[in-house]
């Protein structure tokens, strides 16, 4: 370590900080120019509302080629417009263009008045009512469910409780086996006194949840992201996309106390779902009751819901037609990444469409790494 080192050249450092300074000025100017951050712009109409939840039906110029309507069930912890975050990278628009008939639930923003809402209310109440509305609206016996993250867990529970109403079940980056220690959230939740949290807050503030999410990668999410942002400050479109994502990240609804209490206790801490011990309301959840075709999608680089939490679902359901699909990317990349647009959305459409015509048709998973020891990507 004694030799002279020409590293950290003063001139380059001056240039570095000078550039940084200029970018900050430019950034301030750019932010002044942008007046609105538009998200969730795909046209839709309100078809049902109950308390604070709303059910929307997406409109499309194209007539759906798939007969069975698809209900998208998003997580309670963030807003559903992640799926339609920007017009040129919209999972929703992509699926509509493919030919799906889409509905989506907006869970709304719970207030203190909603602190007693439970998983029973969300699943046996709101979700079941929305499914019934769509069945009536579309004049069909069954709908397909597409559950995302926590919404995937809820959709799976629903499908086990009401299999007669579900034609196909698609789950994306959803947790089912909570015994894993691979994800930090899974570790931390096991030692969280959820009773104390719910008794204190009633409705857990979204900001409080965000602190936990940011702690998963504090240096990248709190520092580097914003320093890197200055690199795209000259490009208004890219800056706007950055702002859209920021808006989504920090637009976090509070969590109804009784619902999150049961979700943490029975799922994260008790792992009751995968063990068929979960009871929602007065109904016992038996995953063997899931007999419809299942497409279970996980992301290989998911740090929020690790694959180990997702994959075991296919081993415990009663379905004969079940597909495990590996997406190479992270939790959010599933919806906004370019591969998501090019590969995943068409694959979901194809999978659903083949089961819309004749059930039980297998689909090839384009992802090569899907060929694991369990033979994912093929009908099991």
């Amino acid at each position, binding site marked *: *370590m*004694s*030799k*002279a*080192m*020409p*590293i*950290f*050249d*003063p001139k*380059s*450092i*001056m*240039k*570095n*900080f*000078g550039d940084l*300074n*200029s970018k*900050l*000025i*430019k*950034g*301030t*100017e750019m*932010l*002044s120019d*942008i*007046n609105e951050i538009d998200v969730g712009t795909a046209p839709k109409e309100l078809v049902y509302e109950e308390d604070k939840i709303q059910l929307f039906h997406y409109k499309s110029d194209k007539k759906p080629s798939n007969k069975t309507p698809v209900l998208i069930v998003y997580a309670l912890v963030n807003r559903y417009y992640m799926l339609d975050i920007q017009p040129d990278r919209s999972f929703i628009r992509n699926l509509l263009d493919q030919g799906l008939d889409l509905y989506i639930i907006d869970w709304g923003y719970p207030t*203190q*008045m909603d602190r*007693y*809402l439970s998983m029973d209310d969300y699943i046996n*109440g709101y979700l079941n009512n929305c499914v019934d509305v769509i069945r009536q609206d579309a004049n069909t016996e069954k709908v397909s469910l597409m559950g995302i993250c926590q919404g995937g867990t809820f959709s799976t529970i629903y499908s086990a409780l009401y299999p007669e109403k579900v034609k196909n079940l698609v789950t994306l980056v959803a947790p089912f086996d909570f015994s894993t*220690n691979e994800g*930090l959230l899974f*570790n*931390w939740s096991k*030692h*969280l*006194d959820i009773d*104390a*949290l719910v*008794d*204190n807050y*009633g409705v857990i503030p979204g900001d409080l949840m965000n602190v936990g999410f940011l702690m998963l990668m*504090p*240096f*990248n999410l*709190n*520092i*580097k992201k*914003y*320093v890197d*942002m*200055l690199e795209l400050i000259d490009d208004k479109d890219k800056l706007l996309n*950055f*702002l859209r994502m*920021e*808006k989504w990240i920090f637009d976090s609804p509070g969590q109804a106390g009784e619902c999150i209490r049961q979700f943490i206790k029975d799922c994260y801490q008790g792992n009751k779902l995968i063990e068929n011990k979960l009871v929602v309301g007065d109904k016992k959840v038996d995953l063997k009751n899931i007999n419809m075709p299942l497409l279970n999608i996980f992301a290989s680089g998911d740090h929020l819901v690790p694959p180990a939490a997702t994959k075991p679902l296919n081993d415990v359901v009663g379905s004969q037609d079940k597909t495990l699909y590996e997406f190479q990317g992270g939790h959010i990349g599933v919806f906004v990444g370019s591969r998501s647009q090019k590969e995943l959305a068409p694959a979901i459409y194809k999978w659903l469409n083949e089961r819309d015509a004749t059930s039980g048709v297998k689909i090839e998973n384009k992802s090569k790494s899907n060929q694991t020891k369990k033979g994912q990507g093929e009908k099991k």
Partner: protein
Amino acid sequence: MSNTNEFFDLWLKAQNQALEATKAVSEQMQTYINNGTKTTNNPFEFWQNSALDAFTNTQNKEKIFKDVLVKTFSNSKTYQKLYEIWQPYFKAIQNKSLNTNNYKNFLDPVEIKKLVDDLFNFDADYFNELQSQLKKFSSNAEQMTKPWMDATQKNINLFPEFIDGQPESFQQMFQNIHAAFDKTFVKNMHAPAVGKDREKVELMLKFIDDLSIYTSKNAEFQHAMYVTGLSATEKVIEAIAQKIEQDEDNIQFEDFFNLWIDTNEKTYYSLFQTKEYSVLKGDLVQAGLNARKKYFELTETYLSDLPIALRSEMNDLYKTVYELRKRIKLLEKQIKEQKA
């Protein structure tokens, strides 16, 4: 870079050029620069503060705009701060004065602690003040305890008379307790001897206890975070030393920044995934929630005489509304099914 003045001179020059290029914006900023309330000898930071003031005071937009700008400026400062902290180390490399024995001397642990404080929102002033208050309370508590100890001793002396069935001894015992209360709680908190106010005092004591536990847990938590921060710093030093050994002579500050981010992220991740951290974090959250709960209970006791709905009463109301709503939905569903 021969000295710090030269560094800042060059820096000032660079930003003057940048300011020239954005006259439209700088005109607005200038007002704030002239009337700026924040003072600093660092022109870069001075400009940042002024620009931030200008934007946040004049723009009427979604909150996210301001949040992003504040975070961007704040993290640019971190970027700059990082350079300041590591500058002595870089200089030592250039002056050939760095060796395996002295490399730690070029980094200030206090500054590194400040960075960790900023990142994880540890408010050092707040906790120092809290600890000082708890210490004062503890000292007061000692003074408060003495009359009670005396009263207890007197009552022990009276106890044989009490069990002998002398009723006046019971009266005397009560008076001893009453006197102790007078000398302590009444004196310190102007509280009467019995009734609701005694509940307040008891609750206050429990709250202080919970706050002490929280402060203690927080100190334990912060210690774990600081130790990890120092460990990460040593790893960064080792990584740079390795690059030097490998004759990598074109390391830019940006490379260093990325190395610093990655190393810290990995080092903290190693801590975060341990069971010990999860338990500590869980204990800290629980301790904080316990104190918070007592605080709200205490607040309610003070507000209970006022004609306002309290949180606990509202919770009861919410529960009733929830149950009624659920009942109505069920009845509506039954009617609908019957009609069908």
